[in-house]
């Protein structure tokens, strides 16, 4: 087997730009997903049966769809049916946001459920308003519970961002596909991509671990 990584080294800036794009798509999609997920959680905690049902159905449907299908539906489906001509980066961000919102909704629900109802009753007994109970009692505790699993969702978003190559967004995999086709060096191109992705994922996983440890320490203090 004749390996030649000099072509890959010559294209190194393209790989790094691609990786930067992947991180950007993951972050943007994740941020929007967290907001939508929180709204979905509010729906699931609503007193209205209809709102609860809508939120439940949304989460179940989105969780049941693979990322690849979501992306094709956003990029091609929305464009043909509703005339929404979205660009590749817009589509991947929306698809990641939809996917991560379902996970985030469930994480927020778990976070709020983990808090003892007695604390809300105690707040009410002290004459605090619903807003103050949420802001001063519930929210600080919920944040500590939801941050570690939300960071894991970010890692999933990063992995999902590689699907952007399917709709010709010039990210990491797309750069590798291009090099693979033009230089016919598929092994070197895809192995380099894998190494870059693994290294980034290891750094992200380490960051998640560090934040988790910090949160545990602050809870213990």
């Amino acid at each position: 087997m004749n390996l030649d990584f000099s072509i890959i080294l010559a294209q190194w800036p393209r790989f790094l730009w691609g990786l930067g794009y992947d991180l950007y798509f993951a972050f943007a999609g994740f941020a929007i997903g967290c907001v939508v997920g929180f709204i979905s959680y509010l729906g699931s905690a609503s007193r209205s049966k209809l709102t609860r049902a809508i939120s439940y159905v949304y989460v179940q449907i989105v969780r049941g769809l693979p990322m690849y299908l979501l992306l094709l539906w956003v990029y091609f489906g929305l464009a043909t049916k509703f005339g929404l001509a979205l660009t590749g980066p817009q589509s991947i961000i929306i698809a990641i946001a939809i996917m991560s919102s379902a996970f985030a909704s469930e994480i927020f629900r778990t976070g709020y459920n983990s808090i003892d109802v007695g604390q809300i009753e105690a707040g009410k007994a002290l004459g605090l308003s619903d807003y103050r109970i949420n802001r001063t009692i519930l929210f600080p505790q919920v944040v500590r519970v939801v941050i570690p699993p939300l960071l894991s969702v970010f890692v999933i978003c990063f992995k999902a961002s590689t699907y952007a190559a399917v709709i010709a967004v010039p990210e990491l995999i797309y750069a590798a596909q291009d090099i693979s086709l033009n230089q016919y060096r598929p092994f070197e191109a895809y192995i380099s991509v894998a190494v870059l992705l693994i290294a980034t994922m290891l750094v992200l996983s380490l960051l998640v671990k560090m934040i988790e440890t910090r949160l545990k320490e602050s809870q213990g203090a």
Partner: protein
Amino acid sequence: MNSWYAVLNHLPAMLYGLRFTFLIAIVSLALSMVFGGLIVSLLRSKSASARAIGFLYIQIFRSLSPYVYVLLVYFALAGATGWKMG
């Protein structure tokens, strides 16, 4: 609404595709159990190097999306070994 007729016309082909999806999932699950069993035995081994190999395997392979795996196996492995896969 005419576009739905096109989907309905291709329903048998889609169901045939669904059969393949299930087949791929079942075969992959069976193989993953074999690989998973091997990795567990590595992780439970008394040898530190075997445990390190098991740990590295998990860290490396859970970092990539299925799309990257497909490209790696289909193009990279085929390009490197000359093995023509279906």
